[in-house]
């Protein structure tokens, strides 16, 4: 993101290394603000439709696989944890641990995507993908489709962020392996970490909002 290729070298517009680091971190946080508003527009639509069509949202939600949802939540939280460990390794100058943690993070992220694609595939098989092929046997199919439209838009947008995150982390891992970052220089890792934790943060909200709308109704 905010880090160029000449990492440690002080870029000409900055007066000090501290100023450079401050600026990069603040830049990343402001980028995350735009991300919050980006997802926020969708959360706003979700809130409106859920408040209008609560029953249909419950019916739709009970067609999602809560086990898959919970598993992907755990996987993503674990990846966030290993990302945090990677930052810690970078700060303490432990390059081996840094690279290992980054690789685990990437693998967990890929695992998350696989579970999510599996969920999507199942929904597709059940004709619950919005569009011309959408079929829902229960009552109120129109509003249930809105539920699935919101589900696919939001998880799709989130998945694209996971994908970007995997790319970002891979680049970071390669650069770490090449020894681009001197010991103790952790800014690029921290910035990549901020992004990755944000991706986790969004899912922490998506999970209950989509998978746990009306579970009690489904199982008596």
């Amino acid at each position: 993101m905010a880090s160029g290729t000449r990492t440690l070298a002080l870029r000409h517009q900055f007066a000090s290394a501290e100023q450079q680091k401050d600026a990069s971190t603040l830049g990343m946080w402001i980028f995350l603000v735009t991300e919050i508003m980006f997802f926020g527009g969708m959360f706003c639509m979700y809130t409106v439709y859920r408040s209008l069509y609560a029953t249909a949202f419950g019916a739709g939600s009970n067609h999602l696989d809560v086990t898959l949802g919970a598993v992907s939540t755990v996987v993503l939280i674990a990846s966030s944890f290993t990302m945090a460990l990677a930052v810690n390794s970078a700060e303490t100058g432990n390059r081996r641990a840094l690279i290992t943690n980054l690789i685990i993070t990437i693998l967990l992220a890929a695992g998350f995507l696989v579970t999510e694609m599996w969920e999507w595939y199942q929904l597709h098989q059940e004709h619950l993908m919005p569009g011309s092929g959408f079929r829902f046997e229960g009552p109120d199919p129109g509003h249930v489709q809105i539920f699935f439209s919101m589900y696919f838009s939001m998880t799709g947008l989130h998945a694209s962020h996971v994908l970007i995150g995997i790319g970002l982390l891979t680049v970071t891992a390669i650069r770490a392996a090449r020894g681009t970052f001197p010991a103790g220089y952790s800014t690029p890792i921290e910035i990549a970490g901020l992004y990755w934790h944000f991706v986790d943060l969004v899912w922490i909200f998506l999970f209950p909002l989509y998978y746990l709308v009306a579970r009690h109704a489904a199982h008596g």
Partner: protein
Amino acid sequence: MVTATQATRENYLNVNYGVKSWLLTEDHKRIALMYLVAITFFFFLGGAFATLIRLELLTPQGDLVSSHTYNKLFTLHGIIMVFLFLIPAIPATLGNFLVPIMLGAKDLAFPKINLASWYVFMIGGLFTMYAMLAGGLDTGWTFYTPLSTAYSNGYVVTTGVGIFIIGFSSIMTGLNFIVTIHRMRAPGLTWFRLPLFIWSMYATSLIMVLGTPVLAVTILLLAVERLFGLGIFDPNRGGDPVLFQHLFWFYSHPAVYIMVLPAMGVVSELVCAFSRKKVFGYNFIAFSSVAIAVLGFLVWGHHLFVAGQSVYAGMIFSFLSFMVAIPSAVKVFNWTATLYRGSISYQTPMLYAFGFIGLFTIGGLTGLFLATLGLDIHVTDTYFIVAHFHYIMVGGTLMAYLGGMHYWWPKMTGRMYPEGWSKLSALIVFLGFNLTFFPQFILGYLGMPRRYHAYPEEFQVLNVMSSAGASVLAVGYLLPMVYFIWSLRYGKVAPDNPWGASGLEWQTTSPPPPENFETTPVITREPYIFDPPVPEEVKVG
């Protein structure tokens, strides 16, 4: 051309040459000029559409172009002017050029992102141009659903993608400015020593960063809905078209402040420089910018008073809309008070500043008409609206933009523009503008709806007046284009501070060196303090 006097001094223009030195530059000043070229092109393109619109409206019958073509004309006029001209106009050109210099910095915090923003802008622009050439778009720039998702046969998705991309360039610029203003100020440059232009840029950037993503995601969903039939905005499935309008205006109303806050910043600079006085009520003007940015986010619902929004929400939004009028009024009063006991000169930028205050006052006051619930019902969606927002965006933003261009032109290019011609053009723009848009207020109250290709005959007189004004206005805009280009070669060589203005940008050379200052300046006092004049400048080698 490089004259003898300039050749000796290294500046950002002569430091290196060639297409690559521009296209790969990370210098904020060069990027500003690249933006200038791009938006000037888009301005004249949007202007060409406007010309056709005004020609069509000369007669009540729709006889010049078909109704379908007419709809495309105003749609593209709107999209180009809003997204490709007005929003980037001041921030991406004057802002890009001036923010680091006014802060005493060598560049923006992220020069690469700055360059990327230009490319992103151009790619988005090209998408939009492609959609235009491929067959155009007829939804209006507002993309209201379900017309845009299910009924229009225009290039909605392509244009949507274009706007989505342009949004990112705006986000990048805003992000860069915020970080730069927080972290790159020269030693001693505290917040209350900042020029007011910087305050307005800061407020603008806040809106860009907080608002643009919401538009981006809304347009994205619109495109997906059109492609795959999601149903989110489709009333047949229980989707709510008014929800689209909420999300659209959550960005697009603050976007008006993205356009006008920078203009207010420019005018604050001009009024001080040409009355040689510290601005009256610095704190009030500075904070009013931030207040406008914040309150501006809470008033979007005043676009929906007749749209099927609840009456009670309408009352909340009306109240908040009146609130946002107050800081704007405070600014106008403070500018006027700044003139009191000043030393006022009538150079071209000041004429534009006067024009801005006048037209913006009318635009702002007619805004009150629209915030007034009972009155808005009658005038909304009529030419009254059209007149109102042109007074704000053209009378406000464009006047300030032109004023700012004249004021900083010597700094940007090292050349003076011809004073006589520029005064004439300022006068023509002011008169032409009023002739074009004032009749539209009356038209609107009489009930002529906007976006009408043909109209009842009783509205013709006022429409002819408006079209006549538009032709005057066109001359007013073409003139600066001609003499600015002329001045690049034949203009007088500009001194470092042709206006006797205060401000860091006037302490460096014209044009500035690649890193803006020979040595990092240290600031020890408040802005807008005018020193006694130094003896006529003797330029050092």
